[in-house]
């Protein structure tokens, strides 16, 4: 027996949906009305772009050619007419937008530009007091600046660079999110450990001649370099 596959027929589903459209109500003289539209466009050029626009011609009495001319002048201004209201169907040709009926008036809600609720996250952290032994400052969003010293047994962890205007006696870990361009700067280096993007040096590995001097540390490839500043 041969099995025959019945082609399954998709049901056509129709759904209703309503939109709010701008309704243009031209008045005579049409030239003057178009100047008004031009003035609006001059203030905000993109105002009607992508917005549904309906022409309500009940206030004016226009011939078929006049309607066609009005629609093309609007198209010339980048305004696409979705439909026309307030005329006899006989006045419209097939190349014109369709006749619409049954439109209901509604209040246009002035959508205020939403104020960004959450402020953009700060990209740096400033500490105005010394960081004491046992304290751990973790800031993965950017640079950390300390106006003071970082005590032995304290640690600073930063996503970006670390700037210390004092003596660095504790640990400093910069670029923890994989930022290999991060650097560590300090006014006096007596650090227990320096790390950038996972590469680290302990106090033992730091050259003694650098000690007690202003210094910076950065990554060159996968080698940490520490040099005196100025």
């Amino acid at each position, binding site marked *: 027996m041969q099995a025959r596959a019945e082609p399954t027929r998709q049901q056509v589903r129709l759904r209703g949906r309503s939109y709010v459209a701008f309704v243009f109500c031209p008045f005579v003289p049409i030239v003057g009305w178009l100047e008004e539209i031009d003035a609006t466009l001059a203030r905000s050029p993109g105002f009607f772009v992508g917005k549904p626009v309906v022409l309500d011609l009940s206030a004016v009495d226009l011939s078929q050619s006049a309607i066609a001319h009005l629609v093309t002048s609007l198209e010339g201004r980048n305004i696409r007419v979705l439909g026309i209201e307030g005329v006899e169907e006989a006045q419209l040709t097939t190349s014109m937008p369709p006749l619409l009926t049954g439109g209901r008036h509604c209040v246009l809600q002035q959508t205020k530009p939403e104020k960004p609720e959450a402020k953009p996250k700060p990209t740096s952290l400033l500490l105005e007091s010394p960081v*004491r*032994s*046992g304290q751990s400052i973790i800031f993965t969003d950017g640079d950390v600046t300390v106006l003071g010293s970082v005590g*032995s*047994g*304290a640690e600073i962890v930063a996503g970006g660079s670390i700037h210390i205007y004092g*003596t660095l006696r504790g640990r400093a870990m910069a670029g923890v999110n994989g930022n290999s361009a991060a650097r560590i700067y300090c006014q006096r280096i007596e650090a227990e450990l320096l790390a950038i993007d996972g590469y680290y040096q302990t106090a033992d590995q730091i050259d003694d001649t650098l000690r007690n001097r202003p210094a910076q540390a950065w990554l060159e490839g996968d080698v940490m370099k520490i040099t005196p500043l100025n």
Partner: protein
Amino acid sequence: MAKVLVVTSGKGGVGKTTTTAATGAALAQNGQKVVVVDFDVGLRNLDLVMGAERRVVFDLINVVQGVAKLSQALIRDKRLENLWLLPASQTRDKDALTDEGIGNIIAELRTKYDWIICDSPAGIERGATLAMRYADEAIIVTNPEVSSVRDSDRIIGMLDSKTVKAEKGEQVKKHILITRYDTARASRGEMLTIEDILEILATPLLGIIPESQDVLRASNVGTPVTLNNANSAPARAYIDAARRLMGETITMLVPTERVGLMNRLLGRRAA
């Protein structure tokens, strides 16, 4: 205005209890009404240094738990009528202390005394954090050696974050007191210098107490060093420190090696 002063250090054996007793006695001698409170529950020492160990009936924990009234636990000093002691319990441990209980006791003491001096236990756990919890001012006792200085740095961090004042956005007024300063070793460069310590801790200095046999001698007889021999070098340093606490300006003297008359005549340096 009553002031709550915590004597703390992080590290043990640096001289917190000695400092509490000596400073308390010195303030009382200056006419201030003072109570010294021992927070070292389970390892109490302040009663010994104050010479009051035979008179302890009720203690801090009894008051915290409501077994005794505060007035029953307070012991008046026999030598100074302005000086009182609130002893710790020796049979309990620090878990018996509660934040609320301590808060109530401190609030009650504030109404009766000019100075409430809290002798903190070593460490950074419950006893030490509760001793500093309600402090307005703090003496950080530091020896001129790296471990003590680092522990002091840690304690300063806690004073700036874990106290009621810090939580209200205010600052506990902090003072560094350098104790056991050995003039002979300092002159040989074997200790951290005062400048090094103050540079690391970035906190004002209250005084420098020289290493001295007088301190041990006073402890052994149960008398604060400022009462035992007021003319000894450590006693004078403590008395100056107490007056600085009261707001007086007194020149800071760095103890130097005292050269005896004979040695000076002979042009020799003391060993």
